[in-house]
């Protein structure tokens, strides 16, 4: 039964003389491989060479600071709620007088921890954040860890360094 007009009936006739002699086809095949012999390899030597993965790649987390250098995070906990893997936990603290340069909001995260073994890099924390504080960097992957105590990342590893600001492609 014919369901569509896309069917192609393949008819294999007797092989012609040139086909039965094999040699013309072999020479043709060898020309193809020789062409590839001189073409450029497509290999990327991975650990040494990396390719650009695009501006939306979800890599290592970062807690952004604002332009003045104050932490944006206000410890609202929305990222922890959004996290399907329950990898994020935090302890909130009220900002004291004189700490305005350190924290942008009146409440801040005293402890902010991400369990890197639990994290599935879905990026929902980034979407949930109302303060544009947490991002998954597009150009940096979480390095391999070998010990259990390296698994939970605290603020020391997560908060953006002032001398190494994160700027995603496409941001102004």
């Amino acid at each position: 039964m014919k369901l569509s007009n896309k069917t192609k009936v393949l008819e294999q006739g007797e092989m012609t003389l040139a086909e039965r002699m094999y040699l013309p086809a072999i020479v043709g095949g060898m020309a193809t491989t020789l062409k590839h012999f001189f073409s450029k390899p497509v290999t990327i030597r991975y650990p040494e060479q990396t390719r650009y993965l695009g501006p939306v790649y979800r890599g290592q987390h970062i807690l952004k600071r604002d332009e003045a250098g104050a932490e944006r995070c206000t410890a609202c906990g929305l990222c922890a709620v959004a996290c399907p893997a329950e990898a994020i936990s935090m302890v909130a603290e009220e900002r004291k007088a004189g700490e305005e340069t350190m924290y942008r909001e009146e409440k801040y995260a005293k402890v902010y921890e991400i369990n890197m073994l639990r994290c599935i890099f879905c990026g929902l924390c980034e979407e949930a954040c109302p303060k544009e504080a947490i991002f998954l960097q597009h150009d940096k992957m979480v390095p391999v860890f070998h010990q259990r105590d390296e698994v939970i990342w605290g603020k020391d590893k997560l908060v953006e360094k002032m001398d190494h600001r994160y700027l995603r492609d496409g941001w102004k």
Partner: protein
Amino acid sequence: MELLNTVFIAKAIIVGVVFAITLGVAAYSTYFERKIAAFMQDRIGPDRAGPFGILQPLADAVKMFMKEDFIPANSNKWLFIAGPCLSMLTALMTSAVVPFGDSVTIGGATFDLQGIDVNIGILWVFGIVSLGVYGIMIGGWASNNKFALLGAIRAASQNISYELAMGMAIITILMITGSLSTKEIVEVQQNGHWNIFYQPLGFIIFIICAFAECNRTPFDLPECETELIGGYHTEYSSMKLGFYLFAEYINMFISGAVMATLYFGGYDYPGVEFVTQQFGSNVASFVGVGALIGKSLGFVFVFMWVRWTIPRFRYDQLMNLGWTGLIPLAMYNVVVTGFGILIGKPFMVSIAGLVLLIAALFVYDQLLVKKKIA
């Protein structure tokens, strides 16, 4: 006595150098096989061991030696050990009669750059190549494993089948040269009178048979993971397996050298006379050695090139090609060459023979197709 000593030392040096070159080429063939495969598949290939990965053969050898050398409990132990030894021995013996260069004169004494110049040179090559089957056969038999035995049987029947066509292809060379000595075959071809021009059909038959004799793709049936687990060397491990694989690469290089000797003028190269006049005959001879090795390496490249281009034959197709394709062709070639020698124009007749053959095949094909339609 003095002369005898000099000759003996000279021969020892030649044998040693040939041995070293053969082993070195075989070792680096494994590296270049992988590199060429990679390039043909748009990859880079091994590049970790040393610059460009040139220490890869060393790494492979170390790996091979470090592996457990296992001998199956129910195998015939001595034959099991003898198998790879025989393979290696026969692979290395063939190069004895290949003339690697013209003679050199050192201190008034003249030496041929050849292991031995026997008057049955080509028969020696054939005898040793035939013996090469024993290495595989004994290995497969001694393993006491039905798959290894099947692989060995495949190898043996394939080699025997293709030896016939190969022998007939060589008969035409002998008819032209009138001698079995490899040295004389090369000397007849000097100054560009290479046999490839007089024997194009013979060369095609010979190179196809050489592929089969070396167990290379498209005739690599003795090794087959899907059907035979591994092939005749299923039960082998460590350096015994290494010897089998190594022997294959040596065979490839040597068969390249034999093809260069028989069809591509051996150590002949364009501009011999110029080099002789400018730098003397010794230098010319050594350049000739380079020419022969270059030609052999060229053939090794062709072997690899073909391997990474085309898939293998089915076993019945392989037998069919050998017995009903190549042997009649070789017979036809013998007749055509004989006719050419009879009327004294071998070059014209060989080309005419090739054209006639293709025309005859074409006409036969046309007739056959018409019959099918009617």
